[in-house]
């Protein structure tokens, strides 16, 4: 299937008082349509920065990317029209009611007033928020709040949904619900989902394919199975061990000598699957 997101050498350097900081050194990535991609990496690896570039919030300082055929640099408005984004912190005002937030969001996507009201009800029904429309966002539980954040991002039926650590801070039940929701979005609407996570069990259970970033580059990519086989040593390897092997922060006989401090070894450069 065609790539709905493709990035080549996507990079971002921040100028700080202490000199330039290469937050993202060069991301090469292709995400297929209808795929759930898990974007993993240690803290500070450049996950959120990459996400913020792909959603037009941050201008890349190098490389290029397209989202559903729209070039990031040349057509940011086109990218915005086809993608939804849920930041780690969410994005609703706790003082405002669920209904008002959903309707205003619809209006920001240029729906008419009545269309926005209808869409808000649709989204509330689809994301199981129907009973809370008149409640203030701040009065929702963690799981309900997350569903509201996602409902906001789905207002314009985006082709691509970017989720930044969507289940951080949720209880196990809410996490399971959210996984079901993500799968349903893909199955029923064909939405491509690009999600970052720190939970390896989440990546294992939810993602069709993983991209592991380290030091601002994609260190490895493939299905969870393939990665376990290639980097963890066997199919029975845990994703935890695989992850540590790839990012050079754990025991792995083949990688340990080559990795620390040095350039990425041949084993951990991007691999086409």
């Amino acid at each position, binding site marked *: 299937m065609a790539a709905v997101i493709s990035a080549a050498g996507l990079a971002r350097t921040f100028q700080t008082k202490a000199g330039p900081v290469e937050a993202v050194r060069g991301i090469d990535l292709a995400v297929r349509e209808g795929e759930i991609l898990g974007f993993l990496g240690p803290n500070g690896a450049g996950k959120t920065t990459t996400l913020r570039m792909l959603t037009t919030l941050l201008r890349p300082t190098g490389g290029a990317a397209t989202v559903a055929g729209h070039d990031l640099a040349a057509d940011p408005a086109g990218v*915005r029209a086809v993608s939804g984004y849920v930041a*780690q912190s969410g994005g609703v*005002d706790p*003082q405002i009611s669920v209904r008002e937030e959903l309707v205003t969001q619809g209006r*920001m996507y240029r729906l008419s007033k009545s269309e926005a009201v209808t869409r808000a009800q649709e989204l509330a029904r689809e994301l199981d928020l129907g009973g809370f429309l008149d409640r203030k966002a701040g009065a929702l539980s963690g799981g309900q709040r997350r569903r509201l954040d996602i409902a906001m991002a789905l207002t314009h039926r985006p082709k691509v949904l970017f989720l930044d650590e969507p289940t951080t801070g949720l209880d196990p039940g809410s996490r399971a619900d959210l996984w079901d929701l993500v799968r349903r979005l893909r199955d029923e609407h064909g939405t491509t989902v690009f999600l970052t996570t720190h939970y390896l069990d989440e990546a294992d259970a939810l993602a069709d394919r993983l991209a592991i970033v380290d030091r601002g580059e994609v260190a490895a990519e493939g299905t969870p199975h393939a990665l376990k086989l290639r980097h963890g040593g066997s199919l029975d390897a845990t994703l935890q061990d695989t992850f540590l092997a790839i990012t050079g922060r754990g025991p792995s006989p083949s990688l340990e000598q080559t990795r620390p401090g040095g350039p990425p070894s041949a084993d951990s450069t991007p691999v086409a699957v």
Partner: protein
Amino acid sequence: MLLHDTALLYGRYLRQSLRSRFALLFGVLTPLLYLLFFGPLLTRLPLGGTGSSWQVLVPGLLLQLGLFGALFAGFMVIVEKGQGVVERMRVTPVSRLALLLGRVLRDATVFVFQAVLLVLAALVMGLRAPLAGIFIGFAFVALLTLSLASLSYALGMRVRTPQEFGPLINMVSMPSMLLSGLMLPMTLAPAWLDVLSHFVPFRYLVDAVRDAYVGHYATAHMLYGALVAVGFAALTVTVGTRVFRTAGA
């Protein structure tokens, strides 16, 4: 589209202001205290120019309202940044100019409302001024708060914590108030202070509103005041919109 988006965001933020009625009235408290406890001191002093001391003081208090109120508007955007609201809006197709205008027009509305309250109180205290002059005063308050709020949002988008923001604003607002002759006209000042005050843009606004309050509309002060107010607004709105377009912090 710009109009649609601006109206949408203006409505959102105006409702936000209406929800906190206390804050809405609180802003007018400081100038009101000046009016009550400082104004009476001036009634017998020779302030120069024509008209009563109230016609000198009230224009100053009106602009003080803007200076101390609107300059702090950026605090709200720091809160919204933390909630993720700013980024959530920035990934929608909503106009970047509207992201700023919706906010600052709300601020201008709130401060003009407070200015009306202040002028009503001043009328009770003894202010007499031509109606047209009073309305010109409100127009200047609107333009000034629009500019200062834009500046404040731009700054709020740039700083990381409210702790950085407060001192920065105080550093701007205190000298601006003293040097622009908000409390007493700079014509009373020694030459060096008078010269210095001409480098503070608010000086021109105060002079213009003071002229308006004594019914002098076609003066050099009025011309300079209007030019500075419009120029300052154009500059700050441009800067503010740029920040909403590119903010990476």
